[in-house]
């Protein structure tokens, strides 16, 4: 009877949570789709990417403008809610978390051997019993420190660190279609190890939210849109709650008093509530009201409470499980990384062809999240994420490939700049655009070899190519580097090419016209 009631409650929570998760994932996918040209205006296609407080902090660091502060209002709103409801975003909304849950559910039960929390928790609880605060290094705080530290130094690591960026980029890759390798790696980790391993131990966005949630941990559940609330009188101390917690939170078990859970990592996913066999001991509440199954509340019996023991561990719990020393140490670690990585970045940041309005290379690398929103928005599909050909720093940054398609900045109202959730791409007047400059390879050009062609001149929207007889001549001051000429040059490889500004533009003397990177 009681078990049936518990199952009913568990089912209610599961259906509610899965519906919210799938709905949000669908919304995320829709917005990712809607970034394609013309990008959606209301709600802006990049709205969900601006939910990312880390991206907001990064943008503030790189731009120092109040406009950015205002643009990232979803992130600040999320942080505000996080103060009230801890990491509910991770449990109920995060699209990456939803994928992890899906992977976890798809794993055959026979292979599920991931509740290492159980044994690990034993030692932690033993420590608590001795009155010592549990010591547990949480890698995510270290990663957060490193990510923020490098962010201050102008090195962007969000392309690995932000779940929203990872998801958005992966959607782009899936649509290409290409394999989103990094997402696949994370999903594999979730499958092999634990579904929420990333969220619990690695995710710096989660770490930031954990930290922020501490600010509101003493607020009553009455102010919280979503929280897990414990009634210690009904608790039977069975431990089902933390055995079933994906994040290994022992708080409901060791907590003595009733009220809202304060653990910084609690995602209010309700797994503990679903698992709790004692009626009324754990509830998901919203502003003080129960979220589910009032019938269950009515059936609430307190008989189990009688067996409850009053002896509980009293030591501190639910806060940060990282010490000051560890935090400072990780900052130092970040500084060392920063020195190495930052110096390396400056060494390697030669110019790359990018969209109009991309700031100078090092500023661009600092600002760009590699979310691939711009590549989706481009009506000409002329920008694509880079691979590792220019090193790790430029991985997944958008590169302009004029041979694939020329840039139509004068016709698309800079769709890439409009959808960029951060400040990587500046809005420019069309007359100010200068992406690169076109140079003719006189050895391979049909016109320079005396044959009628002049396709480049025909295609140039800026009248930057003049015909000298049959020979095309580029007028440097008129050329915007839009690449229409390179796109349509009938020779293979193209005999006219856009070179990066500031790079020595010379064709190789062997007239091969092959891919040449950089000048002298």
């Amino acid at each position, binding site marked *: 009877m009681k078990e049936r009631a518990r199952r009913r409650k568990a089912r209610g929570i599961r259906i509610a949570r899965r519906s919210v998760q799938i709905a949000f994932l669908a919304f995320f*996918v829709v917005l990712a*789709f809607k970034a394609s040209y013309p990008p959606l205006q209301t709600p802006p296609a990049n709205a969900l990417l601006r939910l990312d407080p880390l991206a907001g902090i990064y943008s503030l660091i790189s731009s120092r403008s109040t406009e950015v502060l205002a643009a990232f209002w979803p992130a600040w709103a999320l942080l505000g809610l996080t103060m009230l409801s801890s990491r509910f975003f991770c449990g109920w909304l995060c699209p990456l978390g939803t994928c992890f849950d899906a992977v976890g559910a*798809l794993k055959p*039960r026979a292979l599920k051997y991931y509740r290492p929390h159980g044994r690990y928790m034993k030692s932690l609880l*033993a420590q608590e019993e001795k009155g010592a605060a549990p010591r547990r290094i949480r890698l995510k705080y270290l990663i957060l420190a490193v990510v923020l530290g490098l962010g201050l130094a102008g090195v962007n690591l969000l392309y690995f660190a932000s779940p929203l960026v990872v998801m958005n980029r992966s959607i782009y890759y899936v649509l290409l279609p290409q394999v989103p390798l990094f997402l696949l790696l994370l999903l594999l980790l979730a499958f092999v190890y634990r579904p929420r391993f990333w969220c619990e131990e690695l995710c710096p966005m989660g770490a930031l939210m954990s930290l922020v949630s501490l600010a509101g941990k003493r607020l009553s559940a009455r102010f919280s849109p979503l929280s897990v609330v414990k009634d210690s009188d009904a608790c039977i101390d069975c431990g089902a709650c933390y055995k079933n917690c994906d994040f290994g939170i022992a708080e409901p078990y060791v907590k003595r008093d009733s009220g809202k859970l304060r653990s910084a990592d609690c995602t209010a996913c309700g797994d503990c509530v679903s698992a709790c066999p004692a009626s009324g001991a754990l509830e998901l509440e919203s502003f003080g009201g129960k979220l589910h199954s009032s019938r269950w509340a009515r059936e609430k019996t307190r008989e189990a409470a009688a067996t409850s023991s009053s002896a509980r561990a009293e030591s501190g719990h639910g806060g940060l499980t990282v010490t000051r020393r560890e935090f400072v140490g990780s900052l130092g670690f970040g500084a060392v990384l920063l020195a190495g990585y930052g110096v390396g970045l400056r060494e390697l940041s030669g110019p790359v062809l990018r969209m109009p309005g991309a700031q100078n290379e090092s500023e661009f690398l600092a600002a760009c999240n590699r979310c691939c929103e711009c590549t989706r928005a481009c009506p000409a599909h002329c920008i694509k994420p880079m691979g590792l050909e220019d090193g790790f720093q430029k991985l997944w940054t958008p590169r302009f490939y004029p041979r694939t*398609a020329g840039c139509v900045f*004068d016709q698309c109202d800079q769709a890439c700049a409009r959808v960029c959730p951060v400040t990587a791409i500046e809005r420019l007047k069309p007359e100010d655009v200068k992406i690169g400059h076109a140079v003719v390879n006189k050895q391979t050009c049909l016109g320079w070899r005396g044959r009628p062609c002049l396709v480049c001149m*025909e295609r140039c929207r800026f009248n930057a190519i003049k015909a000298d007889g049959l020979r095309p001549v580029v007028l440097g001051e008129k050329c915007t580097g839009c690449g229409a000429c390179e796109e349509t040059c009938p020779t293979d490889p193209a005999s006219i090419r856009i070179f990066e500004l500031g790079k020595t533009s010379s064709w190789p003397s062997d007239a091969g016209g092959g891919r040449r990177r950089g000048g002298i």
Partner: protein
Amino acid sequence: MKDVYKPDSFSEQEIEAACKALASTLERREFLKKAGYWAGGLVLAGGLGALAGCGGKTTIKETVKSTTPSTAPAPAPSGAADLAVAAGQSPGEITRKAVDALGGMGRFVKPGNVVVVKPNASFMAGPEAGTSTHPEVVGQVVKMCREAGASRVIVMDHCLRGSPEVCFAGNGIGAAVRGAGGEVLAYNGGDSGHGVDTAIPGGIALKQTSVYPEVLNADVVITVPKAKHHGSAGLSLGMKNFIGVVSNMSSVHNSDLHQAIADINTLVKPNLSVIDASIILLDNGPGGPGPTRNAGTVIASSDVVAADSYACTLFGMTASDVPYIVKGNRAGLGEVDYNKLHMARV
């Protein structure tokens, strides 16, 4: 405290036992069920996204009735000219005069025919720049086709500078065609995916290329070019205009350009050529900007070579200065000496 904390609940044996129990068929079934829910949910999410993402897009590719184009020249009604040159300052009016002098559009278009009109609409500058066919000329041709009973009049070109929508809006042809009851079919010049690989039996330089299918399927094909200077071909006229029905342009430029133009005209033979020489571009063609001259002329002919040949005179040139016209004559496409034709000046 031991009684509160129950280490037994985490024993290895328990975990093993649990694993075994969970591996039972029942669990497997539950797994499948769960997998189904999740897969369904994810597919739903993706599908919603796909729906939303694709909703706004429209492609203007239409299926066209598949018939062989009529290659036999239309018999001239008695008294009708084979080459008509109309002069005047209203491009629309003189277009009608010129075609009427040939015996009217009914000579070329029969009721129920599907007509493809191929103007020069690749550039977005308006008629004063002399880079695209005058919208009044195109509109008048479309109107005459409709009057002759054409079931559909498709005006198609591919755009060389920027997006087709912007292009057809800028040169005014889009609005003129829609106003006259025609359809606009605008391709992006950079896009070669729409063409159909077609062999050119009479081809000398170009044996095979990719052609937009609408042209191949049309009952009647009318070329409505702008007479203008062209950097590589010398002049851009009626024959040259059919480069615009080829989707992979590099195949044309990589072969002998002039011969390739003639070759394409053996594949796509226009039933009627209406050359817009109202404002002609004298230099820096085909895209301009360049010097223009108000020639105030429209040339219409059932013979594409003769029409081109006559148009050369407006530039102070002769057909021998434009190799593709000579090669077209050699390929039997028409008469290069327009004086041999029955000519009418109106």
